[in-house]
C-alpha cells in the first residue's frame, strides 16, 4: 500500500487508462498547459499530446456535447468540468444527449463517456461555486453517478468509470483533493453501484457519501467515546446505481439510521435513502430515520454562516443522540 492524495489517485487512474487504451482522451478547461485547475491532469499533456489532452474554450455545453459525439463515434472521452457548478451549462449535453442516446436509438449507440470534476462547498466560494449537484444527476435514468470519498475509491471508481460503456457522472469532493489515504500498488478497481461499510457498528447506521463520509466518521468516533454508541458508517460511493441492499442490511442490524448529505434537503439523495429504508426495513426500525443535510439556502459567503450551512460532526452527533434517546 502506498499513501497518496485523492488528487494523485485520480491522476494515476487517468494515466493508467490513457496508457492502456488510446481511445481515452481528456478534454476540458485548463486541463493541458495549466495542468488542470486542481492539478488532477498534471503532466498528461506532455505525455499524451494535445489531441488526447485538449484545452477547450470556456463553453461547457459545447465541449461536453463534443465529448458525447466523440463517444458515440467510438472514443472514450473524459470531460473535465472545472467545477460542477459550471456544468449546469452542459446539463443539456449530459441529460438530453448522453443519457438518452442509447435508449432513443433503440440500443444502437451507447455513450462511453465520463464527466468529472469537483462538487460541493469549499471555503467561502459563495453561492454560485459551492453547490452539490449530486441529486441533479442521480435523478436521471441513463446516467451512472459516482462520488468517491477516499483516494482508493477515487482511483478504483475512475478506472471502472472510464471502462464503462455508459455515461458516468463522476463528482469529486472539492475539499478532498489533498486528503491522503492508502491505495493498492497493484491495479485497483471499485465496481459502480456498490456501497462500502467504512466503519462497523451495532447501534446505529450513518449513511453518507463523498465529503460527508469523513464527517460521519468523525461523528462515529465521537459517538463511541462520548456516548458509548457504536455507529456503522455506510459510504454509498455511487448514487446511481444506488446500493440499497447494503444500506438496508445495515439498518436491519442496527435498527436506527441517520442519513447525511451535503446538499439541500428537498428531493435530496437522503430522501431516496429514507424511502429505501422504510420500504424494505420498516419493521426493523426502532426510531424514525433522521436526515442531516445542507441547510435549505444558497451558500452564504461569510464563514460564520457557511460553517452552519454545511453538515458538521456536531450535527450528526446530535441526530445520533436523539435516535438513541440519549438527548
Amino acid at each position, binding site marked *: 500500500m502506498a499513501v497518496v492524495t485523492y488528487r494523485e489517485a485520480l491522476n494515476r487512474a487517468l494515466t493508467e487508462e490513457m496508457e492502456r487504451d488510446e481511445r481515452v482522451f481528456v478534454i476540458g478547461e485548463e486541463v493541458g498547459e495549466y495542468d488542470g485547475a486542481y492539478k488532477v491532469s498534471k503532466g498528461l499533456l506532455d505525455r499524451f499530446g494535445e489531441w488526447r489532452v485538449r484545452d477547450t474554450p470556456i463553453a461547457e455545453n459545447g465541449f461536453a456535447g463534443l465529448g458525447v459525439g466523440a*463517444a458515440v463515434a467510438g472514443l472514450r472521452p473524459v470531460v473535465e468540468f472545472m467545477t460542477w457548478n459550471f456544468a449546469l451549462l452542459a446539463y443539456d449535453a449530459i441529460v438530453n444527449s448522453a443519457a438518452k442516446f*442509447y435508449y432513443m436509438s433503440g440500443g444502437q449507440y451507447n455513450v462511453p463517456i465520463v464527466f468529472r470534476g469537483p462538487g460541493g462547498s469549499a471555503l467561502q466560494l459563495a453561492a454560485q461555486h459551492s453547490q452539490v449537484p449530486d441529486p441533479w444527476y442521480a435523478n436521471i435514468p441513463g446516467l451512472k453517478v459516482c462520488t468517491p470519498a477516499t483516494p482508493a475509491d477515487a482511483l478504483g471508481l475512475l478506472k471502472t468509470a472510464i471502462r464503462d460503456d455508459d455515461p458516468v457522472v463522476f463528482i469529486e469532493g472539492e475539499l478532498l483533493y489533498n486528503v491522503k489515504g492508502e491505495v493498492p500498488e497493484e491495479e485497483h478497481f471499485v465496481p459502480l453501484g456498490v456501497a462500502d461499510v467504512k466503519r462497523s457498528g451495532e447501534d446505529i447506521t450513518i449513511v453518507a457519501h463523498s465529503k460527508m463520509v469523513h464527517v460521519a466518521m468523525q461523528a462515529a468516533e465521537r459517538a463511541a467515546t462520548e456516548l458509548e454508541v457504536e455507529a456503522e458508517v455506510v459510504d454509498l460511493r455511487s448514487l446511481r446505481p444506488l446500493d440499497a441492499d447494503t444500506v438496508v442490511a445495515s439498518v436491519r442490524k442496527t435498527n436506527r439510521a441517520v442519513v447525511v448529505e451535503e446538499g439541500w434537503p428537498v428531493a435530496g439523495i437522503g430522501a431516496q435513502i429514507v424511502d429505501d429504508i422504510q420500504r424494505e426495513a420498516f419493521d426493523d426500525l426502532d426510531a424514525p430515520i433522521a436526515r442531516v443535510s445542507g441547510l435549505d439556502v444558497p451558500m452564504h459567503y461569510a464563514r460564520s454562516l457557511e460553517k452552519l450551512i454545511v453538515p458538521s460532526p456536531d450535527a450528526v452527533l446530535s441526530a445520533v443522540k436523539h435516535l438513541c434517546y440519549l438527548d
Partner: protein
Amino acid sequence: ESYGRVDGCSGGAGGSMHLFDRSVNFLGGHGIVGTHLPVAAGVGYAIKYRKSDQVVLCFFGDSVVNGGPFHEAFNMTAKWELPVVYVVENNSYGMGTDIDRVAAVEQLFTRACAYQGKRAEQVDGQDVMAVYEAVSRAVHRAREEVRPTFIEAVTYRYLGHSMSDPAHGTYRTREEVQRERQNDPINNFLDRLIGAGICTDEEYKELDREIIAEVEQAAEYAESSPAPDRDEIYSHVYSDEYGDLARRDRWR
C-alpha cells in the same frame, strides 16, 4: 418508427424525432434545438483523432443559428479544423416565428463568417443541382483539406411545424404558401430533366407510381409490426445489466 413499433429503425423508442440507423452511420434525430451541433463536432473530432477520411454532415433548422450551441460548436470546429459540413435548412420559420423577427442578421450564412478557417456559403435550396454541387464541394474540402464548411440552403416549409400545427394562420398567409409552392424543388428538377431529354413524362409518371406503391407498402409493414412488449420498458437504458430500475415502484 413513427408508428412506435418494434421494427422501426430505433425499435419504436425514438419516434419521428429520434430516427437512428447505425447501418448507414446515421447518428440521429435530436429533438432539442441546436443540441446536436456540438455532438457533430465531436464525431468530427473522433474522425480526425483516428486519422480517418470520413466526413460528418450535420443538418438543422434556421432557429439554431440564434442559440449558443451553434457558436460553441462552430468555434471548436473551426479552431481544431474538424471535417464537419453544417447545413442549415433555412425555411424561414422556427415553428410559428418568422426568422426575420428574431435574428439580427439578414442572411444566416453570415453568422458563420466570424470563424476563421471556415467556408460559409448560401445556396438556393430549391435547386437540387446547386445543393448537390455545394455539398460536394464541402465534402471534398472536409476530406482533402480537413476543414469545415457552413452551407445555408434557402428553402421553404409548406406544412406546419408539427402534425398538430396548421400550415398557415397567424404567422403567414395561405397566399404566401401557395406562391412558394410554385417554386417546388422536385417539380423544378423534373422540368429540367424533361427539358434536357433525360427523363420523359411517362417515365416520371411510372416513377411516381412506384414511389406511391413503396410508401403504401411501408405503411402496411408498419401497421403489421407489433408494438413493444412491456418487457421492453427497461431495455436500452444501460448497456449492461442494471438490476435497480424496477426496485422503487411496484404498483403497475
